[in-house]
């Protein structure tokens, strides 16, 4: 045995030492694993402290250690710490192995003898493995300074502006004709009651005019190739049928267009648009889009009214979809959310009872630029409601639909209640399970609503019906609810019901996640790298997430995430290079039989087949190090750096204490 191994057992205060007999483990490793090459074995109160690290560094120098095993917490916490300590003492950081005797041992077991025995086995496994570890160098790859932002809602807008203002190019891709997202549809924002459009549109204009932002609306990402620092993204620009270089956005085309279309996107089905349209007057960019599904010309072959009247000849009915490829170093996904479809709860009557509205529909009714000019009226377009019921948690906090809390509905419902009372003087009932007002100024807004005389009924609404039982209920919508504060069933007749539908992940979020190589939670929200400490990065290097695509949140939280993702990327761009973990597969070309089994297994297309030499080769920059090809190679020609067969097989031996004796000796428990 030529290796000189140092073993370090951490007490972690009493976290480990309270259950595991660390002195015993340390002594055992020093004696029983000596023939494996362990020359020194120590235990120390806090290995991760600077004194603990210095202890290791001193041993590396004085004892001429060639390998280090630290038994402490999870490698996800302190692997970097100990690798850096080794590096500081001149030992290649990948010759250090951190094994977990805290999360996997002392914290989960109560039997002290069994936990100590298990710690010995874990240390033995680490020692057996570290012998086969190799000195590795991180892969350095250059970072392309451009960034792709997907989604032009407030999170994407914020991210794009932050990066562009710092002097770097941003491609902002949006699938609708205009940026703005859901925020552009809202009337007021809680709790300040700022006009949503008034605070959003200046930012939209900034994006449209920014010299560093290439705005690609009415476009979708088709394909993503490459890896952090070097993504090649193919974007499909859908045909607008408008020559944007000639269009002035004068609006004559949509004024003259004879075809009215129900606007299900921006107006949430509450109003119409034309077949050639901009979604809303402040749209950015200002160019309209011809909706080729509804346009008379595309349906019947005649009309072309827009073309006749366009003063700059900007209409082009023959425009085709176009694909462009851009090179970017990093990507931000800010693809937003879908509204929960209230039709899924039939007892609430949405879609069946005319005067049951969703929250998005109500936003449009409230909005001065909306279909009713901001008049709060019933579906007939003229009658003002005298009583309004607002139902909270529609499709949220309900295990039949979505178990999570949608985070914004309480405040949004309070905002609605305020607006209804302010504009119509109607009586407003809020039906809530719990009122959740955790952010700055939110609780104060709730108190204000209580003082304004809005009624609050604590209980989940059972049913909204138009079947009257008493004359007072005739012609009304009756809300059947158990008032849990008085412990009684109540029937409350109202003129208008607003359903606070919750947020859902985009219907295609799983496809988008797959396209960009990131993961989704069970509810289809994108998963962040760490829920507390790394909320905008993903497990895929170079791909960041922001806004509601990550989970339900309000506007300030979306802005924060957009800015945070931008800051993370700016930091990466400034470094100019990124160090990738050298956990990669390599193919020994002398052993490769050219069977190509591995070629199809790789989801990153990292394995190339050389037709001339009839062998496969791994592109280390594309390889993510999963090791599936290593396990599949029938010739054993592929080896996985950092997780080689020798390392794993030896670790199995070590864990079973086969490295100590020739016969299998179970650890005494």
């Amino acid at each position, binding site marked *: 045995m030529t290796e000189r191994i140092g073993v370090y057992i951490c007490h972690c205060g009493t976290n480990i030492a309270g259950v595991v007999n660390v002195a015993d483990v340390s002594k055992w490793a020093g004696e029983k694993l000596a023939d494996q090459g362990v020359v020194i074995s120590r235990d120390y109160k806090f290995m991760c402290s600077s004194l603990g690290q210095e202890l290791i560094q001193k041993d590396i120098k004085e004892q001429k250690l060639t390998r280090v095993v630290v038994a402490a917490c*999870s*490698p*996800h916490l302190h692997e970097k710490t100990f690798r850096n300590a080794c590096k500081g003492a001149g030992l290649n950081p990948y010759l250090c192995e951190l094994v*977990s005797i*805290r*999360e*996997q*041992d002392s*914290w*989960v*077991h*109560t*039997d002290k003898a*069994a*936990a100590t*025995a*298990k710690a010995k*086995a*874990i240390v033995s*496994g680490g020692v057996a493995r570290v012998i086969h570890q190799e000195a590795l160098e991180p892969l350095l790859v250059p970072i392309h300074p451009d960034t792709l932002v997907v989604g032009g809602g407030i999170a994407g807008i914020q991210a794009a502006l932050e990066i562009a203002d710092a002097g770097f190019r941003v491609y902002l891709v949006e699938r609708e004709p205009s940026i703005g997202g859901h925020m552009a549809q809202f009337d007021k924002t809680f709790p300040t009651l700022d006009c949503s459009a008034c605070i959003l549109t200046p930012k939209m204009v900034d994006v449209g005019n920014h010299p560093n932002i290439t705005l690609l609306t009415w476009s979708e990402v088709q394909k993503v190739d490459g890896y952090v620092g070097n993504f090649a993204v193919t974007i499909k620009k859908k045909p607008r049928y408008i020559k944007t270089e000639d269009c002035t956005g004068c609006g004559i085309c949509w004024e003259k267009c004879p075809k009215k279309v129900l606007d299900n996107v921006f107006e949430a089905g509450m109003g119409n648009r034309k077949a050639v349209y901009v979604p809303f007057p402040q749209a950015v960019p200002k160019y309209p889009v011809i909706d080729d599904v509804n346009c008379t010309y595309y349906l019947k072959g005649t009309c072309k009214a827009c073309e006749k009247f366009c003063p700059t000849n900007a209409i082009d009915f023959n425009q085709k979809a176009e694909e462009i490829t851009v090179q970017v170093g990093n990507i931000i996904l800010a693809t937003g959310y879908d509204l929960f479809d209230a039709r899924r709860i039939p007892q609430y009557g949405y879609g069946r009872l005319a005067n049951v509205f969703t929250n998005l529909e109500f936003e449009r009714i409230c909005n001065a630029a909306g279909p009713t000019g901001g008049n709060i009226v019933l579906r007939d377009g003229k009658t003002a409601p005298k009583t309004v019921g607002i139902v909270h948690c529609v499709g949220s906090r309900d295990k039949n639909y979505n178990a999570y809390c949608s985070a914004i509905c309480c405040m949004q419902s309070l905002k609605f209640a305020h607006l209804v009372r302010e504009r119509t003087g109607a009586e407003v009932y809020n039906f809530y399970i719990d009122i959740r007002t955790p952010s700055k100024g939110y609780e104060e807004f709730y108190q204000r609503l209580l003082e304004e005389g809005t009624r609050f009924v604590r209980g989940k609404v059972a049913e909204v019906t138009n079947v009257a039982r008493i004359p007072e209920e005739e012609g009304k919508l009756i809300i059947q609810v158990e008032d849990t504060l008085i412990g009684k069933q109540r029937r409350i007749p109202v003129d208008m019901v607003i359903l606070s539908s919750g947020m859902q992940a985009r219907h295609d979020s*799983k496809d988008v996640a*797959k396209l960009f*190589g990131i*993961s*989704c*939670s*069970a509810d289809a929200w994108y*998963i962040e790298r760490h829920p507390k400490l790394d909320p905008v990065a993903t*497990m*895929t290097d170079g791909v960041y997430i922001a806004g509601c695509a990550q989970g339900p949140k309000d506007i300030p939280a979306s802005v924060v995430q957009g800015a945070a993702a931008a800051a993370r990327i700016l930091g990466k761009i400034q470094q100019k290079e990124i160090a990738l973990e050298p*956990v990669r597969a390599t193919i020994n070309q002398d052993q490769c039989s050219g069977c190509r089994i591995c070629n199809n*297994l790789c*989801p*990153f297309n990292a394995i190339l087949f050389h037709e001339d030499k009839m062998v496969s080769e791994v592109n280390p920059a594309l390889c*993510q*190090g*999963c*090791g*599936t090809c*290593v*396990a*599949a190679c029938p010739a054993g020609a592929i080896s*996985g750096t*950092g*997780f080689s*067969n020798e390392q*794993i*097989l030896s*670790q*199995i*031996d070590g*864990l*079973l204490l*086969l490295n100590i004796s020739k016969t*299998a000796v*179970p*650890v005494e*428990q």
Partner: protein
Amino acid sequence: MTEETKPFEPVIIGFTCNWCSYRAADMAGTARMKYAPNIRLIRLMCSGRLDPTFVFKAFAGGADAVLISGCHPGDCHYVEQNYKAMRRFQLMKRVLAQLGIESGRLKLLWASAAEGAIFAAEINKFVEEVRALGPLNWSQPGEQVSTPIMEEVTA
């Protein structure tokens, strides 16, 4: 306590992936959820890295059971490599049956990084199942393989 009355304590080797199930184990630890100390874990980058040799090596080396764990289908950090683990798991069960080893000694468990509680509970369940099976006794050369196992092979 004499040798006979001492309850059988199985030794189980568990393979975890770096992104989901190892983090589930970390989560179980952080939340101080208790489970049986019979399992010893090995971290791989992905359940797709699991070479069947690892499993057979563990059995050959004296493990009474082996746990394979990874991200839930659809949640794999490497897009779809856990499906490869799933297929290998089915193949390995058959090979084990041919070797005369009860298929209950090999378990596949999906656990997301948030599912520490599930991870701990499943380990406890598995330890009890293996305890019921008893120590792994390799069939001796020439020994007749019992019928239920043969049925499984031919099924």
